[in-house]
């Protein structure tokens, strides 16, 4: 897995070989290409950006150009083993609706997002009194695509409220390594949060 971006490696560990996968906001198609070659998955990437779509075509993966905010109406209920969305949740107009759609379309959904509860973000805001800008979130408040940032606690509260079942959780740093601190205080020390949610009919 050496050639794959670290943030995608953990997701690959979660995917059963031979699965049918839908990768939402798949970027240049790196994850799907790797999964196709190494995990024999089938499926589609969904992406809106023209340059990214072109990269996907060059990688010979199935790519569907559409706007995630417009919903997943093109896809039937429970038609995928996994619906994956990496680092796109915070950029959606209605992440709650998209999550609902993911659970409708997939048996399992995998979501990753930057944890805004990270101590660095808190410190930046409390000491400087300004919106945090970092290597992971480099944009300014006025031009950021990340319009719905959330924390680990926010996300887990949301899942509880909506009766969404979290079946796996990974709290890691930007290189996707876990640590003891992150295990103890995920909301304070986790840089990136990864979740696997089960489809609703399995919810207790």
């Amino acid at each position, binding site marked *: 897995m050496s050639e794959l971006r670290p943030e995608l490696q953990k997701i690959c560990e979660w995917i059963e070989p031979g699965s*049918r996968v839908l990768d939402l906001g798949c970027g240049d198609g790196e994850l799907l290409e790797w999964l196709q070659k190494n995990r024999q998955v*089938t499926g*589609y990437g969904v992406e809106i950006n*023209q340059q990214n*779509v*072109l990269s*996907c*075509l*060059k990688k*010979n993966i*199935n*790519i*569907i*150009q*559409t706007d995630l905010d417009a919903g997943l*109406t*093109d*896809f*039937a209920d429970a*038609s995928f083993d996994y619906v994956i969305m990496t680092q796109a949740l915070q950029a959606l107009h209605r992440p709650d609706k998209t999550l609902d759609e993911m659970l409708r379309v997939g048996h399992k959904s995998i979501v990753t997002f930057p944890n805004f509860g990270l101590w660095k973000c808190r410190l930046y805001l409390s000491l400087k009194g300004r919106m945090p800008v970092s290597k992971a979130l480099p944009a300014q408040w006025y031009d950021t695509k990340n319009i719905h940032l959330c924390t680990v606690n926010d996300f887990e509260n949301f899942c509880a409220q909506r009766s969404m079942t979290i079946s796996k959780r990974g709290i890691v740093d930007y290189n996707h390594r876990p640590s003891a601190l992150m295990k103890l205080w995920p909301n304070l020390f986790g840089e990136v949060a990864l979740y696997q949610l089960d489809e609703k009919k399995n919810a207790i």
Partner: protein
Amino acid sequence: MINITTQSVGLVEPKTMHFDEALSLVCGKVLEQYDIVYETYGTLNAKADNAVLVCHALSADHHAAGYHSKEDAKPGWWDICIGPGKPIDTDKFFVVSPCNLGHCSGSTGPRSLNPDTSIAYGKDFPMMTVVDWVNYQQRLADKLGIKQWAAVAGGSLGGMQALQWAIQFPDKLHHAIVIASAPKLSAQNIAFNAVARQAIMNDPDFHDGRYYDFDTVPSNGLKVARMLGHITYLSDDAMGDKFGRELKNEQLNYDYGVEFQVESYLRYQGESFASRFDANTYLLMTKALDYFDPAEEEGGDLSAVFKKVKAKFFLASFTTDWRFSPERSKEIVSALTDANRDVSYLEFESNHGHDAFLVENDDYIDAFKAYMQNIEVST
């Protein structure tokens, strides 16, 4: 005189293939014999696995790329996509571009002589469907020694033929390229076609389709039909940008002559079309569009039809196309994903409406090229 660039297939010549084997048609009639005019570009390789079938839409024909003479004002209809280094790269692929049965550019059609009567078929020419075209195209492939197409490609009505190929002969193509198309016409689409047909059939020179015998042409009807069609091929934006409310002359005359530039443009389009196209063919082509509905065999369930498809699909639409809007292409994409078939779908920004698939556009050309480059052929 035109300047033929290195990206052009250059000067090309149509060929004719005669078929003596009777072709049974969907309408129940049989065409005992027929001619198909076609062009080819590039070279068929030893394994004959690099052939691409290009299917034309309503008003185009076999002349898809290059020039017939150095005096030609324009190249073939899909020259932006066919040629050396272009998406359908003729250095790699062998392109076959036939003129459909029922057309007026050389293949057997209403203007051809009916061997039973020795006069032109006229309205007796049997009704054509996309299924029938795919059948003759399959026979043409056989005669050319092509067992399997690397790809079948087309836009609009041509895209419907590519779609039908994947359904009708699932083992005989690897890729289906369906651009600015639809899985069937909407009521609005059929309505436009119906009005176009009424314009032609109500022309006093139509003579119930026998106008060849009267040495007349229902050109007024055909003009109106084309003007109507043309409006639906352009977007509101494109017409607005091109003409706005610009006047033909300096001031309004308050009469019924041509006052606005857009009227003048439409009349020109209608006239130039009527001078080269046959009215019976126009009627027949619009009917073929109306009849197209491959989902019908599965009670309207397109994804059930796609279960037997083996080809990989490349679909594309254009934002301002309202004749076959992006939503129509998405219906095909959705049915393909439901059937778990391989498909890529792109939606390109363009203000050229339905005609956008014939217009140079970097995103469109780059994406189409990227897809075609991944198609494997032997060397």
